[in-house]
């Protein structure tokens, strides 16, 4: 199976699992219905936007594959969070399992962040060197290292800290990683002398 098709299958499977869990959640507890609709529709909308933004260009197929992988991993993490919650609320699992499940979900998130961060610098820029709207390589290397270190810290926090301290420690780390990553990209965009890829006349084939 080609990586193009495999990424589509993984993303679709992930979207379906999350939709099934949202339907299960809705069947258990109707209120608020908007919550379940938002959970079920978030990933498909994001995926549709990602596909449309690439304009079907074959030159940027690897970027589309990358976006599908991100959607598949996001769905997996969402399912890891939702599944145990629903299993506990329907008493499919005894309440004694709750601390263990919370820890496992946190560890899975941390490991996911490490894997994502490790691979991020391998994603090749879709633009020509002279047309890049920001320093793609440096930004992705920075964010990759940040995500790997943040992911290791989150995994460590859920493994070794008491539950009451693990959640705030992990949340603080994730917020710090996000702020630094967005900040680094904004700085690179602001200091770039290249035209925006959305401006007319700029070449990106």
């Amino acid at each position: 199976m080609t990586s193009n098709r495999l990424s589509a299958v993984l993303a679709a499977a992930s979207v379906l699992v999350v939709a099934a869990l949202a339907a299960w959640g809705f069947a258990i507890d109707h209120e608020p219905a908007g919550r379940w609709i938002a959970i079920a529709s978030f990933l498909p909308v994001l995926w549709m936007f990602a596909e449309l933004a690439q304009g079907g260009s074959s030159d940027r197929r690897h970027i589309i594959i990358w976006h599908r992988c991100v959607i598949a991993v996001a769905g997996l993490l969402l399912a890891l969070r939702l599944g145990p919650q629903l299993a506990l609320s329907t008493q499919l699992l005894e309440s004694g399992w709750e601390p263990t499940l919370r820890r496992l979900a946190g560890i899975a998130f941390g490991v996911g962040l490490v894997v994502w961060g490790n691979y991020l610098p391998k994603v090749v820029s879709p633009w020509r060197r002279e047309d890049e709207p920001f320093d793609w390589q440096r930004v992705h290397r920075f964010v990759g290292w940040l995500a790997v270190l943040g992911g290791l810290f989150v995994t460590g926090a859920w493994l070794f800290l008491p539950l009451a301290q693990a959640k705030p420690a992990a949340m603080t780390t994730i917020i710090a990683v996000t702020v630094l990553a967005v900040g680094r990209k904004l700085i690179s965009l602001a200091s770039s002398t290249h035209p925006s890829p959305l401006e007319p006349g700029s070449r990106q084939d």
Partner: protein
Amino acid sequence: MNQVFKALSDPTRRRVLQLLRERPKTAGELSDHFDLSKPTMSGHFAVLREANLIAPDKRGTTITYRLKLSVLEEALLGFAETFGFELQLQQKRTFSRGSAGNEVLS
């Protein structure tokens, strides 16, 4: 993974990766930093490409290479740089001792 280790074991290829850390460079720009023939440099680029550590972007007759290192591979490059340097020093010491011994013998 074997291909990655093979690619990182050579000081010239490690230097190529270091140069690409700054920004993407053309094959000509990279070759200018080395006193090696064109076919030799092409061989090094091929090994790096096979290990998926660099990505070529061919436009007309120009090939631009971009770095394609994961965080783990970059950490391995760091280790290889450190230990490679140690190894080179050790080889130099062994070589100079060997040369001295030869001189004494002769």
